[in-house]
């Protein structure tokens, strides 16, 4: 079965650089969610999009922005990277009309040096 695709899987950036993470949801899934998981911590909700509109917002820094495109894929843009941004970034998606069951991608491991 098709799963959520995230790219890249690993990313190394230096402080103050920018990064773009991409997420391709499961076919027919119209809602995308982004979560951040720091080392040894639980995933924290960042932001979600439904039908290309922001649907909910969590503890996402102002340095981060995200959007969902017409093909439902989503991109998380991170600027002025800090050491504390080093984390595993998950994208999840849910089926149209079934927002309550989220399927997670493999994650992008971002390391900021």
């Amino acid at each position: 079965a098709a799963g959520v695709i995230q790219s890249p899987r690993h990313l190394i950036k230096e402080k103050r650089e920018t990064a773009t993470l991409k997420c391709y949801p499961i076919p027919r899934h119209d809602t995308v969610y982004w979560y951040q998981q720091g080392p040894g911590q639980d995933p924290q909700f960042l932001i979600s999009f439904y039908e290309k509109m922001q649907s909910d917002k969590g503890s996402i820094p102002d340095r981060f922005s995200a959007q969902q495109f017409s093909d439902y894929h989503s991109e998380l843009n991170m600027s002025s990277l800090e050491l504390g941004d080093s984390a595993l970034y998950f994208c999840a998606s849910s089926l149209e009309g079934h927002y309550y069951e989220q399927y997670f991608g493999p994650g992008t491991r971002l390391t900021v040096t």
Partner: protein
Amino acid sequence: GIQVEQSPPDLILQEGANSTLRCNFSDSVNNLQWFHQNPWGQLINLFYIPSGTKQNGRLSATTVATERYSLLYISSSQTTDSGVYFCAGGEGTYKYIFGTGTRLKVLA
């Protein structure tokens, strides 16, 4: 926002043993999922279970929504069950709040 507590925080089992993991919520949640995060970091859906009982092979889960808790049962544990188990409660329409997880290690 809701608080999600999981217990125990750490668990070491011998292969073949059974275990029960618990998840408590500070407030009512409209949705609930259990996940397994394997040693490679992947988050795998185990159950969507806002209420009632479900079973999938050696795993089963029960949620008592009125008492704001959920249980995950693992029977005849295997080394591949090792990892971190998270429960997550839905807050609002789109957001899941995760618990702090139970770190499980199954010894051969």
